[in-house]
């Protein structure tokens, strides 16, 4: 087994370049190393000017998402050994503007996320004296899968619809809306529906399903979107049959 591996890393330095370029680095090959370890080796030993986001190294923080050989991956969970002896190509997540090197601009997502109110909405909080909001394990299971989302944006990089139409709300935001809709303590589904029943909400989705395929936390955003479509369609028919009903 070779004792080195080469990394082709996209560089973009806006102060001196107008286009991203590729730079090749040779790093030691260790079978327990992930792509993020290789990037940190480059940063520490070879080229301190390389910029990339990372924090927890264990698939919790969601900051080290990058394209590895063209696929959106968490670089802390992507082993060099799966690509060796071939070179590994590391690029910033697609569908996002690049700030610098491997760092993407995620303001678009940060603006969209609060629009679906991803928190528990109550018409009226019950007084503290009445105790906690209780939930059965079955009720927890309803939404638990969607609550695993770490906002790593791999699903946005994988979604061709988001690539074509940046107005699309996108997989993670819809899955997170569903996470709170399915929570028995929540009363905000109507407000979220206002936002998501628009064309840029759920109806923009064309059932490609790549979001679910790339999700490192097995959240299944595609499933969330299809479930949401069903409830939105039911609402739509209800508003026809009972136009006098509550809007």
């Amino acid at each position, binding site marked *: 087994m070779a004792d080195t591996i080469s990394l082709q890393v996209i560089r973009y330095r806006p102060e001196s370049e107008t286009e991203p370029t590729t730079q090749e680095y040779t790093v030691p090959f260790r079978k327990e190393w992930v792509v993020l370890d290789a990037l940190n080796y480059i940063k520490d030993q070879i080229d301190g000017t390389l910029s990339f986001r990372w924090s927890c190294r264990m698939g919790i923080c969601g900051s080290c998402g990058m394209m590895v050989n063209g696929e959106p991956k968490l670089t802390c969970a992507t082993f060099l050994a799966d690509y060796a002896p071939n070179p590994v190509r590391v690029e910033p997540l697609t569908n996002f503007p690049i700030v610098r090197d491997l760092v993407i601009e995620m303001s678009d997502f940060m603006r969209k996320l609060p629009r679906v109110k991803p928190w528990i909405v109550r018409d009226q909080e019950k007084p503290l004296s009445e105790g906690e909001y209780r939930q059965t394990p079955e009720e927890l299971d309803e939404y638990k899968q969607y609550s695993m989302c770490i906002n790593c944006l791999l699903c946005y990089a994988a979604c061709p619809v988001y690539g*074509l139409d940046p107005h699309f709300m996108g997989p993670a935001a819809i899955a997170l809306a569903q996470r709170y809709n399915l929570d028995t303590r929540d009363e905000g589904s109507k407000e979220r529906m206002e936002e998501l029943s628009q064309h840029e909400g759920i109806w923009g989705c*064309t059932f*490609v399903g790549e979001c679910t395929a790339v999700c490192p936390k097995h959240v299944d955003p595609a499933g969330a979107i299809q479930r949401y479509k*069903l409830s939105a*369609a039911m609402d739509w*028919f209800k508003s026809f049959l009972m136009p006098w009903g509550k809007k």
Partner: protein
Amino acid sequence: MAKRTIEPLLWTLFSAGGVIAALFIPIQLLLFGVVFPLGLAEAPSRERMLGLIGHPLTRLYLFVMCTMALLHAAHRFRFTLYDGLQIKHLNELINLFCYGGAIVLSIWTLVLLWHIP
């Protein structure tokens, strides 16, 4: 209330069409494409088949199955054109082609079924 869109109706037809197509078309394919040609079961006679298809309920079944499958295909093909060829700006034309096509073929199905003696 948000802006009215017809998308929920189209999606419901797509969804229902998918379910119907996935559940029932394999039955016809299995019977008339595999079981009868291979002689695994005795094929019904022409007279019995005509009698069966002549029944209003059979015709209704065939009509619903074909129409819903066509509407499903129209919706799927529309989005394939959007994403695959990236021609979403031709939205109206694509809708006319896909859903119009499904409606025309549904009418043709109706005519065919109508003319069975």
